[in-house]
């Protein structure tokens, strides 16, 4: 995690030179959206199952911060570990959801 103020000093006057097509900015926003998706599931789980919901909320914060990691220049932003991390997180959440859905106590559902 780098200091954004320090980074701003390195950026040339033309944003298209520093970040062509704003690709980095859009990718960071995509990470933010993904972290919000994790947060949504975490908050929903927090009500009935805080033991599962709280770790998912922590995952959300981790995903958000991964999106803000600085990419090594010249490496093409290759990020296999981050990608693998997200895959493992989503799969783990799916397994937890499956356990809740199949083995959890019977729910009467939300009465509206």
């Amino acid at each position, binding site marked *: 995690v780098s200091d954004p103020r320090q980074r701003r000093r390195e950026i*040339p006057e033309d944003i*298209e*030179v*520093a970040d*062509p*097509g704003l*690709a*980095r900015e*859009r*990718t960071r926003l*995509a*990470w933010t*959206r*993904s972290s919000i*998706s*994790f947060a*949504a*599931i975490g908050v*929903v*789980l927090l009500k*009935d199952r805080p033991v599962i919901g709280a770790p998912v909320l922590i995952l959300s914060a981790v995903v958000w911060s991964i999106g803000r990691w600085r*990419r090594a*220049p*010249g*490496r*093409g*932003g*290759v*990020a*296999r570990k981050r*990608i*693998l991390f*997200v*895959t493992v997180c*989503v*799969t783990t*959440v*799916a*397994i937890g*959801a*499956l356990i*809740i*859905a*199949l083995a*959890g106590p*019977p*729910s*009467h*559902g*939300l*009465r509206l």
Partner: protein
Amino acid sequence: MIALGSRPRKEPPTSSADEGQNGNESASTEPDVRFTLANERTFLAWSRTSLALIAAGLAIAQLLPPFPRVPWGRSVIATPLIVLGAALSGLSYVEWRRNQRTIRLGEPMPHTHLPRVLALTVSVIALLAAAVDLYSKASR
């Protein structure tokens, strides 16, 4: 998104804008950062799709009132949604790796099966949900 569907070029289309990114020497081996980042965003979009499917499955299992006289009804709809979410997550990682390799080699983008898998499975689950609902009402 960026034109990932077109053939990626090792030489960036606007080379003057990218020299600061890759450097002149590594430009021949390193792909244009924009293609790599677009690939990453595509993967993240599929991950969010997976999470949405998982959330939908959870909601059906926990928030939906049970179907009258069909106690297994909610599980039958929720389970394939969650399994599809997990499967799409793994498949999107495989696609990300494959696309990353393709970009690096400068080859044409390969065909993707993920949209078809998603559309077909969601359609089948929707029909399944309709069938469970009708069965629940008919057995009254």
